[in-house]
């Protein structure tokens, strides 16, 4: 009983970390500039495909490919923001949705063109395969790695946001953009950097997700719903909120599947609906 509970918790936390990595960037940029970027998962795919290319074609070790996934996705995010997205900050939410869905469609076709439609995988090193014995229980090595990665990213993000000057600017911009501008904060620049960071984190998430869910051209649409759920439940612009929401959804999804498999498909949506009815602005909304 205890072992199974611990196992379910462990898997749920690992799954939650994946959701956290994929969605935290969207939460912050949405909260900051009110910019609805539905193409967030297309950025995750940049990271994923870079990892696939580096490991399979150029023989890079998986772990070394991860930083490159981050950098590549961040670079693409930066270019996208500078060339296209910045024209749309004043546009209506609906136009932003339409535009970014257009980007998703284009990206799907481009990925299918270059990588084909087959599900891609990236070889992981032997120490990340199989399971590890700890306290008399076996834990999947890759999931341990995921949890460590997620925790590390969360700690770095919170520290950077709380203790750096740039972090203070971002917090100010999320809380009240007009006031922040009035105080002389360069909100556009802060947004640009945040957007690149958010894209990079998505890229990292996309790379880390390959081992768990695989990667194909339809990823950008298939995972959009999960990412939106995490963002909405967590509350816009809140790293802590995204973290808590991702954990909660990951664990409840796993526990639901284990204890009530007939509810499996419903549970994540039921939890979301219940949480949003309880707290419409999200668990830790900044506004």
């Amino acid at each position, binding site marked *: 009983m205890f072992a199974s509970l611990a196992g379910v918790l462990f898997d749920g936390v690992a799954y939650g970390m994946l959701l956290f990595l994929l969605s935290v960037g969207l939460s912050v940029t949405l909260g900051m500039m009110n910019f609805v970027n539905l193409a967030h998962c297309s950025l995750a795919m940049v990271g994923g495909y870079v990892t696939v290319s580096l490991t399979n074609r150029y023989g890079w070790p998986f772990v070394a490919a991860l930083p490159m996934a981050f950098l590549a996705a961040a670079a693409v995010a930066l270019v996208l923001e500078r060339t296209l997205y910045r024209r*749309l900050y004043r546009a209506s939410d609906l136009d932003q949705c339409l535009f970014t869905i257009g980007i998703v469609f284009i990206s799907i076709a481009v990925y299918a063109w270059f990588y084909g439609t087959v599900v891609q995988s990236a070889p992981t090193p032997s120490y990340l395969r199989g399971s590890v014995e700890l306290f008399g229980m076996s834990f999947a090595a890759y999931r341990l790695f995921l949890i460590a990665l997620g925790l590390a990213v969360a700690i770095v993000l919170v520290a950077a946001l709380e203790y750096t000057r740039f972090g203070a600017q971002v917090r100010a911009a999320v809380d009240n953009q007009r006031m922040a501008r009035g105080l002389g904060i360069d909100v556009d620049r802060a947004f640009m950097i945040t957007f690149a960071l958010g894209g990079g984190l998505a890229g990292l998430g996309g790379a880390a997700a390959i081992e768990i869910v695989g990667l194909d051209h339809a990823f950008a649409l298939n995972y959009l*719903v999960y990412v939106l759920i995490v963002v*909405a439940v967590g509350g816009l612009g809140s790293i802590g909120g995204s973290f808590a929401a991702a954990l909660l959804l990951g664990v409840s999804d796993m526990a639901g599947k284990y204890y009530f498999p007939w509810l499996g498909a419903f549970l994540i949506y039921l939890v979301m609906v219940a949480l949003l009815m309880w707290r419409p602005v999200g668990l830790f909304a900044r506004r």
Partner: protein
Amino acid sequence: MRPLEAAFWAATLLPFVVTPSYLALASQVAITALFALSLDLILGYAGIVSLGHAAYFGFGAYTAGLLSKHDFGEPLTGLVLAAIAAGLLGYVTSHLIVRFRHLALIMLTLGLGLLLAEAANSASWLTGGADGLQGVKTAPLLGFKFDLYGRTAYAYSLAVLFLLFLVARRIIHSPFGLALRGIRENARRMPAIGAPSLAHLRKVYTIAAVMAGAAGALLTQTTSTVSLEVLSFGRSADVLVILILGGAGRLYGGIVGAIIYMVARDQFASMNPQYWYFWVGLLLVAVVLFLPNGVLGGLSALYKRPE
């Protein structure tokens, strides 16, 4: 009705003579246009952004399908009953939906839509599950068989679209429609001037569900098929894209959006069956950049500019 409008509706008859081999597509465009029009009522006029509107479309589609499966294939009664069933679902869910705004609203509509889709998948004894509902046979419409060319299908879909369009037009121009726009612009102020906001929103949400259900029933009856796809997130997202593309908050936005989106998709997909997504994506991006607020919104801005 203004001359331009009359010309538009007269033009909808052209496919019968000009492109008689495209009537099956034309029929599905008309159905999608009706679906988009119903979304426009809540999104464009009442500010309720929904990512789960397929729930009502699909509920109507399955109601019509189940009726015809159980030897009740007369299309007109099936259409009315399906629309009522979807309206009931809309009325029940509206109590939950209208209390929320912004992201929570979008996600709640999404959540409810996905829950219904999952339920339909689980209840395969009723819905036929992933294989789709079997044994749907639509009886002839007033003696006209649903033919391979899609003549009956298009005439039927177009007639229902036109009638419900007139209804929607009437609603928009009524005091009720005006109150809705007031709520959209400022939800807090309306109760102060004596308009019961939430009741109004529930009412329009129910009306929109009725129309979406009618659209779903039309799809079932004109194709004699129903599958889980009618309830899918994809269909909800598509209709939202179509409405924004055409221009939300304009009566013709959904119709124009449906024509552009579906014809473009059909043409791109037959030219390039594997990578047509690219061209559709490019179309959406271009519309936002050059015609903000949808095709109709952008065009009317261009038209007004010289003054």
